[in-house]
Each structure stands twice: as C-alpha cells, then as structure tokens.
C-alpha cells in the first residue's frame, strides 16, 4: 500500500512534468527538412490524445470509487455548464475557478482528471471537438494538478489569497501552453514570428513571446486571470466550505493523505 502511494506521488510529479514538456517542443526543435517537419507535427497531433488517455488512466488507477466518481461527475457537469455560459466573450474564462478550487480541495490526481473531463464534457455539449481538444484537456488538467499541489492552509482568507495568486499564475501558464500548441500551426514555420528550427532556446523564446503579444494572447491571458480571480474572490469562501463538506461525505479524506 505504501509503495502504491509513493508510486502514486512519483507518477503525479512525473506526469505533470511530462505534460508540460509536451507543449514545449517548438522551443527545442532542430529539424530543417520541411517535409519531415510537417509529418512530425501531424504525428504529434495524433499522439496527443493517446498521451491524454494514458495520463488519465495513470491518475485514476485505484483512486476512484463510486462516491468520488459521483462528485467528479457533478463538478464536471457544473464546470462544463459554467464554461458554456461564459463562452464567446473574449478573455472571459468561467471554468477555471471551479477547476482550481476543486483541485485544491480534492488534491492533484483528482484535480487533473477534473480539469480534463470538464473541458471534454463542455466540448461534447457544444463547445466543439477538434484537434485542439486534447491539448486543452491536458493544459486544464495541469491547472487542476497544480492547484492540488498547493499547501493546505488552515484559515479561509490566506487560502483565498493563495488560490487567487495561483489563479493568476495558472491563467498565464495555461495561456502560454495553448499558444505554444497553436504557434507552429497558425504561424507556420517561415515568418519572422515563427519558431526557427535549430535556433538557440533564447531566440525561439523571444519569437514566441513576440507571437504571444502580436496575437493578443497576453490580453486573453490577462482577461482570464482577472475573471478567474474575481470569481474565486466572490465564491471561494462559500465554495471551500461546501466542497469540504462534500469531501468528508464522499470519503475523500482517506484518499488525500
């Protein structure tokens, strides 16, 4: 049982690092052949769903009983609905606050699953499924995973502040992950803002940041950070209490230690 738990922790940490790295390839790319490059990108799109599935299995193995499943279902549904309600307005992201608060209460593994299933269900319910979906699922999963790794504080106010700070950081991280994935696809490989195969890291990083600025990505991220922070400030005190009660009733306490 103990070795299970250690493995579990290592798996979570490793899978977390791995999932961030999945997005970062354009920064390190070295290929010069145009055709190989193309093939690589396509294979990458095809492999991403497999990776998402593997990570989800990794996180769910042995951790989900019927009670946890029910809570997961409810939070996913709320998230998906809330996300659909907020969709359409630039920079407004209404799903993150619940992923963060849920991840924080129910810890990393659950947070990851909650993040990805929320995105999946809202896509199935009308946001649309496309090649971007696995990337969104992975990135939102990372946000939930991160929230679950935050330290458990005793008092409500410090908790809320911690969550808001995390929300701001997470909004930019999510944004840059999503930009990283669409960067090679939308900018292509031969403009002054595209990644430059074989170039040193700082060169590509500079191009990436410029791409972020030009495409308004930073603006979106800022919008996301603001809305998420406001939503957390407005709801976290009440939500934390509610979800804590649910965690007790659903037998999560045993799981998170």
């Amino acid at each position, binding site marked *: 049982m103990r070795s299970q738990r250690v493995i579990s922790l290592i798996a979570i940490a490793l899978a977390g690092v791995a999932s961030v790295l999945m997005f970062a390839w354009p920064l390190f790319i070295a290929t010069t052949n145009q055709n190989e490059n193309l093939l690589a990108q396509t294979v990458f799109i095809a492999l991403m769903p497999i990776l998402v599935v593997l990570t989800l299995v990794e996180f769910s*193995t042995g951790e989900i009983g019927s009670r946890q499943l029910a809570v997961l279902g409810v939070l996913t549904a*709320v998230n998906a*609905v809330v996300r659909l309600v907020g969709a359409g307005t630039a920079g407004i992201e209404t799903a993150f606050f619940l992923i963060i608060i849920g991840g924080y209460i129910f810890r990393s593994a659950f947070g990851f699953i909650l993040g990805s*299933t929320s995105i999946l269900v809202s896509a199935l319910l009308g946001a649309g499924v496309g090649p971007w979906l696995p990337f969104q699922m992975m990135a939102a999963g990372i946000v939930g995973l991160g929230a679950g790794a935050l330290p458990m504080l005793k008092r409500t106010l410090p908790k809320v502040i911690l969550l808001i700070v995390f929300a701001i950081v997470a909004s930019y991280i999510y944004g840059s992950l999503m930009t990283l994935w669409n960067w090679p696809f939308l900018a292509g490989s031969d403009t002054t803002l595209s990644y430059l195969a074989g170039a040193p890291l700082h060169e590509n990083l500079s191009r990436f940041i410029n791409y972020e600025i030009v495409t308004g990505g930073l603006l979106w991220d800022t919008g996301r950070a603001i809305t998420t922070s406001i939503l957390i400030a407005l709801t976290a005190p009440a939500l934390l209490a509610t979800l804590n009660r649910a965690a007790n009733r659903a037998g999560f306490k045993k799981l998170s230690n």
Partner: protein
Amino acid sequence: MRSLANRIHPGTWWLVGGTLALVAGSSSNLIAPIAICLLAVILILSFRENATWARSLSFYLALAGIVILIRVIFRILFSYSNPDSAIAILLPRLQINFGFGAFEFLGSVSWQSMYGALIDGARLAAIILAVATATTLANPRKLLKSAPGALYEIATSVSVAINLAPQLIESFNRVRRARQLRGKSKRTSRLAGIVIPVLEDTLDRSLLLAASMDARGFGRRGMQSPVQLLTARLLGLCAIVLTLIGIFLLLSGFSAYLTLAAITIGIIFGALSMRLTSLRLIRTNLTTQARSSIDYAIMILLLVLLIANFVGWLR
C-alpha cells in the same frame, strides 16, 4: 444512409477521422487537403444524425475558413523578405521591439510565399474537418460505452456529467429565480448565492446516485494483486515518458529509427498497462456494438489509403 451510419462502430468513425487528418497533415500540395475537405463534408452531410452532441457543420466550416485566413494574413504581415521571387504586394518593411527581441514585419510578399501559406492553411482546415467528421458522426455516448476498462470510471463520470448538465441548467434558473425572493445579502456575493444552493443540491443528489450505483454492484473488482497494479502503473508511466521522448526525437530529427522505436515501445507499454488495469473489471456489457464487416471493410480502405500516402502515390 442513416441506418447504415448507425451500424458503423463509433470507433471506426474516429479511425476515419484520424486517417484523413494524418493524410491531410502530411501532404505538400493543395489537392489532397481540398479532396479531404470535400470528402469530410460529403460524409457529414450524408451520415449525420439529428442530435445535440454534434456541433453543426457550419461551425467547423467557418473555423476551417478562419484558420486559412489567419495563416495567409500572418504570412503577409510577418514574412521573411525574399527578393528573389515574384513580388505580389510591396509594403514598407518595419521593425518593432516589445522588449523581448526585435522582429521585422510587412515588406514585400511574394506569390510563392502566399501560395505556401494557402497550402498550410488548407492542410489545417482539412485536419479540422477530418476530426469534425469523427465528432459529428460518432455518438459520444456509444463511444464512452466502448471505452476500455481502464477508463471505465472516467467514462462513467463523463456520461453522468452529460446526463446531469441539462438538469443543472434548470436548477440554475430555478435558484436564480428563487434567489430574488431573499434580499441582497452582505455576507456573500450574488454569484455564491446562486452557485452554492445549486452545488449543494447537486452534490446531495450525486451522493444518492453513488449510493444507488454501489447498491447495484458498481465498484466490484476481480482479484488483482498489488504487484499487478503496481506493474500496470509503472508500465503506464514508462509509456508516457517513452512517447514523450519519441515526440522530441521526432521533432529534433535526431534518428528516425530511434524515434520509431521509442514511440512503438511507448504505445505497446501503454496498451499493456491498459490491458492490466482492465483485468480487474468483471463487467459484461450489453450494448457494446460489435464491429461488423462494414467496419472491417472501412478499415481496410483506410489502411490502403495510409500506405498509399506514405509510399508517396498521392504526391
């Protein structure tokens, strides 16, 4: 046509979508992407069911159009200066610096470079429509049911969420209406005043659901030793890491053989891990749709298409 569509396994539609996307993604001319876009539209129009899960074709078409547009505009705005080819647009070349390194934009844009952008855009559009084919034609509920055992809990959770969502919208409306009966509170925000009752209510109900699911045998497991479980997790982890290494190798163009090896072993490990985790389930399944001869015929066609693509017949 629609009854035929019903007989096709949802997984097969995803294979169709995936193969078309792969072919589109690896093409270097305009013909293949355009052909695939047309094929996708024809498939969707002739097989789609009247259902809510499928976002409309027009949404995906619009998206495809926007992607092509963005790609071309991007090329016009930020192209490298290329004095050798025929110039289409001549604009003054400018330089800008946001503090993260300077970059140039505008300047002369060649026909060739715009054509290249068009191909790139068309390729992306074709990938989007190929995936759209799969999402529009494969019923996600059916797909969730044929999910591998290792994903069973998450698949169940997702279908619970899908069933719950319409009820939730109702509860939101009900609570919002009820909320106005009680004046404005200073202790909590308006939003929390709506979200909390909805959430409490749904959580209560979800725990009832969990109780009744458990009383109906959900959560039964076959015997599985801790060693097996551990092996499954380790294999899964290795699979993730190996696939990741594979992707990096692939994109760095380091060694084709090593890349192939990493990805193949990764996928095999992943499959093994899934197999091991699925062993603990003793469930049977009433509604699993068996793959029929139509499915196999389609699969053979797809295989031919893939081989043709990679041998180079289509180029």
